Structure formats: structure tokens, C-alpha cells
């Protein structure tokens, strides 16, 4: 508003001091944005818009333990389950162990049934896939990352499954690529290579007749918990008890086991906020102290006590919000890098919004004491303190 030129000019009275304070706040909010985004992602894992109608069944004791293939028949007979598919963890990488690849052996029919409308594959390529036993469909992002081409052979190294000849290497023929419809799932599927379960099951030297986990599609998301309970009841008291959960919850329980990441992140943020409070508070206090005579002059011009208080608070808000927006903006730019490092965790920029609230809080805490000082100054004393 009309006071903006006055407030802005006041902020930049001591250019270097304001600049350094500004930069400190920018840095703090850069950190805030990055940490908040990670914290949010870990506490709100999303299985995408289609997650609500899917369940995941794993061995009750550990996702690393197998389930018998025979379970599928029984699961399919549970009312509410429209289809079920089976998968196993290959634990593969491409050339070096840091190049993780989610090579997923699938049963074509049931997999694309359970994951209806999630994948975009060209008709010609899909036909080739069905007719090629060693065929593989690769995520477009992964193709780009390694520069693979359709028609090439793709060798991956499994850390778990040996073939009958003792080798841990599995080779596929890239017959096509796929893309995901739901952009929130883009990250989760970015490393996926789909290939035929038959190739896997016949090739592996042990574990035949077992699967890693089972995914089900249900008719009504509202019944998810009930259907999950029915599935687990089928195998209770057997030697392979199961745990069935909605796809969303599955991600959550897994992440919860990583430990209280939230606590660590919030502790760090707390330390950052506290030190920033101190730093900025000191600067504001110093700045107002120096300007007492000028603030007295404003009062002589007719500015009321309340207006002077408001001016100082406005100055604090301007500084903090301006810096926070820059800092949060920078952290937004770092999201792709963090997303890469976390391999598949979806980062949502909505997590940055509390940052603005924090900036306002900071501005108010830091601005109030000097603002009160300014409001209460005695004109005559302040003016005579000048010289």
C-alpha cells in the first residue's frame, strides 16, 4: 500500500546488514522447504488416485518371505475380489549395484487386469510383448536414463535369484516401452521393467511354486478392510499366514519401520528456527534502536503510536516473507534432486505452504519487541538523544 516505499527504504537503510540477514533467512527457509517436503512425503505416502481399490497381500512375518502360489486360487474366490495377480522381488540392478532396476516378473493377463487403465502401451508393442517370451516393457523414463533402444537386449543382475546354471544374470529383449497415466505415480514406477513371470519361474533354480506377494483389485474401496480381513482369515493358523492391506497403508507401515524420521527432521528444523529467531531478532532490535530518533520524527509529523508499531511490524513481515518466498522457491527447485536421491518417493510441493506460516510467525516474534519499543518512545527524549 502507500506505506510500502517508506518501509522498503527503511529496510535497506544499512544495505549490507539487511542483505546478510536476508540471506540467512533465505538459507533457513531453503532448508525448511527441503526437510518439510521429505517429512511430508514420509508421512503421506500416496498410492495414487487408483490406490483405494487395490490390496496387497504379503507374508505376515516379513515381505522378504514367500507365499505359496496356491494361495491365489483361494484369494480369487473371496467375494469382492475382482482379480488377483502375483509378483516376486527380483532385487536387480543394471551393470552396477547403484543402478537399481525394478525388474518385475508379471502374469500379463491378471497384472494388467488388476492395474487396469494405469499403463499406456502402444498396441503393436503390446502384441510383441505377448508373443515374445523373453520380452520386456520398459518405463519411458528409464529408457531415457540409460539410453536403451527397443530391440536391444537388456541384461540385469539379480542379488537373490540364481538361474539353473548358477548365474545371477537375467537377460530380456526390450520389445516396447510404457508410460503411466497418473502423474503422481510417475516416481514410483520410474525404474520399472515388466517381463514374463513364466520366464522367471522356469528359470530360477529354487523357490518354484512360491510368489513374493499378491496384489488384488476389489470392487468397492469402502469394503477394503473387510475384504482384507477375509483374505487373511483364509490362511490364519497355516504355516504361511498372510497380511493383507490397502495399497496406501502398505507403503505407510513400511516407512514407519524406518524409524521416527519425522522426529529427526523436526528436531533439526527446530534448531534452525531457533537460531534464526535469535539472529533476526537481534538485527531488528539493533536496527530499531538506531532509528529511534527517526521514529520520533515520524511521531512529530503526526504518526500515532499505533501507526509506528504497525510500521515496524510491517517491516519485519516484509523482510521475513520476502526472504521466505525466495528460500522456499529455491527449495522447490531442489525437489527433483531430492526425488532422485530418494528413488521413488513422491514429493508434493504443497508441503511448502506451512513455510509461509512459519515466516509470519518468525516476523511477529522478531518484530514485536522492537515495535513495542518504538511505540512507547517518548518524543522529546528521543529527539534530544540525537545529538
Amino acid at each position, binding site marked *: 500500500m502507500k506505506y510500502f516505499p517508506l518501509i522498503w527504504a527503511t529496510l535497506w537503510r544499512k544495505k549490507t546488514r539487511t542483505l546478510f540477514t536476508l540471506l540467512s533467512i533465505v538459507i533457513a527457509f531453503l532448508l525448511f522447504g527441503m526437510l518439510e517436503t521429505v517429512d511430508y512425503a514420509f508421512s503421506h505416502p500416496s498410492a495414487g488416485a487408483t490406490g483405494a481399490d487395490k490390496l496387497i497381500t504379503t507374508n505376515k512375518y516379513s515381505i522378504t518371505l514367500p507365499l505359496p502360489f496356491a494361495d491365489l486360487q483361494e484369494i480369487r474366490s473371496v467375494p469382492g475380489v475382482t482379480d488377483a495377480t502375483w509378483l516376486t522381488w527380483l*532385487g536387480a540392478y543394471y551393470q552396477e549395484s547403484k543402478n537399481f532396476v525394478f525388474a518385475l516378473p508379471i502374469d500379463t493377463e491378471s497384472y494388467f487386469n488388476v492395474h487396469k487403465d494405469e499403463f499406456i502401451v502402444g498396441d503393436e508393442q503390446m502384441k510383441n510383448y505377448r508373443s515374445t517370451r523373453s520380452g520386456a516393457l520398459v518405463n519411458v523414463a528409464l529408457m531415457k536414463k540409460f539410453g536403451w533402444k527397443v530391440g536391444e537386449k537388456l541384461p540385469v543382475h539379480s542379488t537373490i535369484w540364481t538361474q539353473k546354471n548358477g548365474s545371477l544374470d537375467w537377460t530380456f529383449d526390450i520389445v516396447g516401452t510404457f508410460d503411466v497415466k497418473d502423474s503422481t505415480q510417475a516416481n514410483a514406477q520410474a525404474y520399472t521393467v515388466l517381463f514374463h513371470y513364466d520366464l522367471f519361474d522356469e528359470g530360477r533354480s529354487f523357490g518354484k511354486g512360491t510368489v513374493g506377494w499378491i496384489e488384488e483389485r476389489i470392487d468397492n474401496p469402502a469394503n477394503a478392510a473387510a475384504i482384507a480381513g477375509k483374505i487373511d482369515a483364509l490362511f490364519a493358523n497355516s504355516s504361511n499366514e498372510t497380511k493383507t492391506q490397502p495399497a496406501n497403508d502398505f507403503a505407510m507401515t513400511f516407512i514407519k519401520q524406518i524409524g521416527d524420521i519425522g522426529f529427526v527432521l523436526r528436531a533439526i528444523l527446530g534448531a*534452525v528456527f531457533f537460531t534464526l529467531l535469535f*539472529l533476526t531478532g537481534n538485527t531488528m532490535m539493533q536496527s530499531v534502536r538506531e532509528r529511534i530518533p527517526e521514529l520520533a520524527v515520524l511521531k512529530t509529523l503526526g504518526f500515532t503510536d499505533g501507526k509506528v508499531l504497525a510500521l515496524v511490524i510491517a517491516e519485519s513481515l516484509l523482510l521475513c516473507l520476502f526472504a521466505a518466498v525466495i528460500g522456499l522457491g529455491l527449495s522447490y527447485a531442489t525437489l527433483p534432486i531430492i526425488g532422485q536421491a530418494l528413488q521413488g518417493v513422491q514429493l508434493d510441493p504443497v508441503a511448502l505452504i506451512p513455510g509461509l506460516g512459519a515466516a509470519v510467525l518468525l516476523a511477529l516474534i522478531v518484530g514485536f519487541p522492537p515495535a513495542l519499543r518504538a511505540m512507547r518512545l517518548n518524543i522529546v527524549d528521543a529527539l534530544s538523544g540525537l545529538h
Partner: protein
Amino acid sequence: MLKQLIAVISMSLQTVPQRLGASSVIVIGIAGVVAVLVSVLAMGAGFQHTLADSGRDDRVIILRGGSDAELNSNLTRTDIDTIGNAPGLAKDADGKALLSSELVTVVNVPKLDTGTDANVTMRGVGLKLAEVRPELKIVSGKMFRPAVRELIAGVGAAKLFRGLTVGSVLRLRNADWTVTGIFSSNGDVHESELMADVDTVGSSIERPGYSSAVGLLTSAAAFTAFKDSLTSDPQLKVDVQREREYYAKQSAGLTKTINVVGTTVAVIMAIGAMFGALNTMYSAVAARSLEIATLRAIGFGAFPVLFGVMIESLLLSLLGGVIGASLAWMFFNGHTVSTLGAAFAQVVFQLIVTDTLIITGIIWACIIGLLGGFFPALRAARLPVAEALRAG
């Protein structure tokens, strides 16, 4: 030169009380950076100690060839016999090889704090446990008996999970197991595990065979001969590693992540703290420009002034560093944390604020202080004397 330097420094220090607010900005800003840095790195150090420092150089672990972890590995009885005959293994009084055939699996136990289930590693061990793992000591209760569903729990696991007390009964996979004792093992990864007789575990989970074999060598040097004899055997497909290397590999990923994240966060905070330091020192110099100009007019050289300012910044930063490291030590040293280990089971470890970490934190503090003080110091040294005297 030295006399001048001392004079400048004592003048600076005398004025610090007047500038308490601004000076404490450096102290608190840097204390924050160092506290965060040391705390996070202490997590990495603790994890590293629990995992990578597990194991002895003269103990070996044998897995099926190509498996990178016990959980994925599979050895038969015949394999174990062949391994037991290889040269280099220490032998007990009866001439039997000190080899423990082990079977690793995962069970669910509710956590003490949340009550929700979490994964625990259950390790079936052979009869030679005591000789192969001499550092394992029962701290309360007694050892389990073979062929019965009895187990002992590590002190780490006992701190994390419900029902791990001597005499209590756990329901694991539809069978009841009695906890007969609690053990400690030098703070290594096994303290997060449950141990029981290997054959009992095997029949309980209906799994034939073993996942690994752990043996004690006659000496660390016997490793090569031992390994060669096994890897050259065409009937056997195994990977032989020193136990220490095996665990180092298991922890490498997480330790690296913790250290990278911690260092990145600390670097960012340090940059912020540096700006704070710059602010403080610039205003310190500005406030004292009259005194500095007077000293220069008297005949003090530029260098003592420059050093004086930098040393003031350094001393304040040092104080901040010491405070930060102390806070980290006070709050987090020995603090128990647990996270997901390699077998997707919980691993308990303690944060360790090592001496190295404290020194690292203090070095960071000094660097920030020096950087923050340099440009203001330069300005102080280059102050136009006459102008400053006139303005004062």
C-alpha cells in the same frame, strides 16, 4: 607486533559486554550448526559401530555363492560338512571344528513404544555358539536348551520390543517360545536379535537347510587358505568373507546416506551462520571505528587490527562450537535409536558422540568464524583513519 595484537584483542574483549546481543548471535548461530552436525553424524557413527565394527578379523561367514545377505542364502547339510572340514578352522578340545551353522528368519513382535508389530531377526545357531562367539554373554537368565522352543534375546531387542523379559512367553508364528535369558554382545548387531537352537527354528518355520555358517579361524592369517579351499571346490558354490567385511557392506548404504544428509544440512546451516557472523562482525567494526582509528593514529599497524578482529570472531565461534558439541553430547550421546536393517528387520543402535566428532564440530565452528570475520577485519584494517576520527 605481539604487544599491539594483545592490546587490540583486550580492547575488543572489554567491549564485548556492551555488544552482548550481537556477539551472542555468532555464538548461538554456530552452536546450532555444530549441534545439528554432531548429532546427525553421531547417528552415522553409532550405526557404523553397531554394524561395521561388528565382527572379528578371524571370524568368517560363509553364504551361498551370489547371495548378498544371509536372508537370501541357502546352504545344505552337506555344504556345512564340507565347510567344516576346510583347513584353517579352529577346533575345540574334541577336535570338532568351531563352526556354527545358522538359520536366519524374521518374526513379528510388537514394539514397546507404539504397540505395532515390527520385524525382528531370529537367528537359529549351532551348538558351538559359545566358542564361535565368545563375546556373547548372558546378562540375565540362562542359555536356551536345544530341541526345545526356547530363545535368548539381545539387550537391544529387549529395549525395543514387548515381552522380552526372562521367563515370558512369545507367540512367534503360531508357536509359543519361552525367553530364557537376555544377552549382550559388545554392542554389535546381534544385540537386536533373538537366538535359539538352529534345528528347532528350522522345524518351526518348516525350512530345510541353513542360511549361513559362521566359523572361528585359527588366526586372521588363515583366511586365505580357508577361502581358497572352499571356492576351488567344484561341488560347493559359496562366498567366503571375513565377518567384519560382511557387516561393513551391510551397513555401507545407510551409513553413507546418514552422513551425506547430515553433512548437507550442516553445510547449509553453516552458510546461514556465516552470514550471521558477517553481520555481527561488520557491526562490531563499525561500532568501534573510532577506537580503531585512534589506535591507528597512535601508530598501531594494520595487521594487528586485522588479526584482532579475526581473533575476536574466532573466539566467539569457538565458544559457540563448544556449546553446540556439548548440547549434542548431553542430549544424544548414548541415545537409543532403531531403524530398518539389511534384512528388513529392526536394528537397534546408540548414537555415539565420539571425540573425533566433537573435534570436527569445533573445526567447523572455527572455519565459519574465520570466514565470517575476514571481510570485516579487512575493512577495519583499511579504515581511513582521518575520516573515522572526524566522524567520531
